[in-house]
């Protein structure tokens, strides 16, 4: 390895036409990912201008670096120093013999920092997905005309985080739009699933063909994609989601049915606990009836009197939506404060 020490140093040159490069500080997790033999696909996402302009006084500046499963908020940090990016070149100034030179090709006065962002995509999805609420056999809300694939890029979280929330809320694509089901809808579709399973002789906690049940549900006028979303949501862990088979997790399913039965009756304070338990049992496969106990939905219900049951205020769908949207607004506000602080530094 030769250096120019003998001749008194390494010549340092600056190109006249500096390039625009950005410097990104990498947290350890990301370095590890990038050093791997096959680095994952990365992308930079941002909120679309329209969605982010909820508060007109603040100009949203929101960019996120996403790996397949994690996301990091980008923050620009001004430095008082100049950071040159240099490149080795051969320089021949005048008629001298070309000498190896280090040449600055870009000058940066700011770096980008990454902060892990483990926020939930639930709030974002809640904002963009219309509620699919079947009342008297009809849904009275216009669709958003967006596919799942066109929604995820607008959410400032990784696809993995989006998918997790999507499945968690049993969102589905139907009739050219994406939706989230209301508790009432979930309850109705579940009853249809349960009836279909009974009619087809399907045991839901052993392997069955997803399509057998989903198609029977579709015949009753429910979106087949919603039936599939529910079946996937209730599937046991480690099931191949894209495979043709389903097998429901019994504990998860019993709790799901109880919870949404309760949620589907908002504002009712006179729901008799005994009546609720009976309905719950009736909505389950015969063999699962004895599982319908209040402890299966611990934390979801409260008992206003000794004979009635109600939904805990904090867990109702309506308040969840409100709090989630206000939460997203609050978090974006906080983000701007942070951004402002960073600027002042």
């Amino acid at each position, binding site marked *: 390895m*030769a250096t120019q020490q003998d001749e008194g140093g*390494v010549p340092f040159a600056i190109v006249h036409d500096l390039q*625009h490069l*950005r410097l990104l500080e990498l947290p350890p997790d990301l370095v590890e990912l990038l050093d791997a033999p096959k680095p994952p696909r990365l992308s930079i996402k941002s909120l679309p201008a329209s969605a982010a302009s909820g508060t007109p006084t603040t100009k949203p500046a929101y960019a996120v670096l996403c790996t397949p499963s994690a996301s990091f908020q980008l923050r*620009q940090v001004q430095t008082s120093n100049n950071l040159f990016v240099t*490149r080795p070149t051969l320089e021949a100034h005048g008629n001298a013999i070309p000498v190896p030179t280090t040449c600055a090709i870009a000058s940066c006065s700011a*770096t980008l920092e990454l902060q892990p962002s483990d926020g939930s995509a639930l709030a974002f999805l809640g904002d963009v997905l219309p509620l699919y609420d079947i009342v008297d056999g009809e849904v009275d809300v216009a669709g958003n005309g967006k596919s799942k694939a066109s929604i995820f890029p607008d959410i400032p979280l990784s696809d993995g985080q989006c998918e997790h929330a999507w499945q968690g809320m049993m969102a589905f694509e139907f009739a050219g739009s994406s939706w989230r089901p209301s508790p009432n809808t979930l309850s109705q579709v579940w009853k249809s699933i349960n009836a279909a399973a009974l009619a087809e002789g399907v045991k839901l906690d052993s392997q069955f063909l997803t399509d057998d049940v989903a198609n029977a549900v579709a015949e009753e006028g429910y979106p087949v994609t919603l039936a599939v979303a529910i079946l996937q949501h209730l599937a046991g862990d480690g099931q191949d989601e894209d495979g043709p088979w389903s097998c429901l997790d019994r504990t998860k399913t019993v709790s799901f049915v109880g919870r949404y039965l309760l949620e589907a009756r908002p504002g009712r304070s006179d729901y008799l606990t005994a009546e609720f338990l009976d309905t719950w049992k009736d909505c389950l496969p015969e063999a699962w009836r004895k599982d319908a106990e209040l402890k299966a939905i611990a934390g979801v219900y409260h008992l206003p009197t000794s004979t009635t049951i109600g939904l805990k205020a904090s867990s109702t769908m309506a308040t969840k939506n409100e709090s989630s949207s206000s939460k997203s607004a609050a978090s974006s506000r906080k983000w701007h404060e942070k951004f402002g602080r960073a600027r002042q530094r």
Partner: protein
Amino acid sequence: MPSIPLHTRASPQSVSENPLPSLLHTPSGLALVELQGTIHFPPPAVSATSSTTIVGKLVFPLYNPDLADPSDTKWMKRVYFYIGENQRMTGECKRLGSPIAVIRKRDVGDGDTSGDVDMESGQGKEAGEELEIVEIVRYKVVFSLRPEPVSDIAAVDKDEG
């Protein structure tokens, strides 16, 4: 579309011989030099054939390339940056706490090769904009002190050597 791919790619091997100490080498040859202040140099003559201006030189007085002991990092403690004829900055080589990725706009073949990167706003993106990580750099040369005047670079070199 507000989602922009950020490509990672195998760094191209540098074609030019890298005159810096080997610790500062990266596959693409890119390195980071940080300094407090700005380097001013006369604007290039219109007739200039070169697209660069040599503004000074870097000297690693304690570095001996023949002693190829990678664990010997004492040489990192001192680097001189001579600027013009009469100024010198003293600095050092530092390992970065967090490695830094150098990012540039990828040429998507639409003829726009300006290389501008705009990530603060996340808005006003042209369709088809793509970014790539050109290199991950783990060391930098920092000059955090103010330049000091020197009268004769050749004489200083002799003293240090």
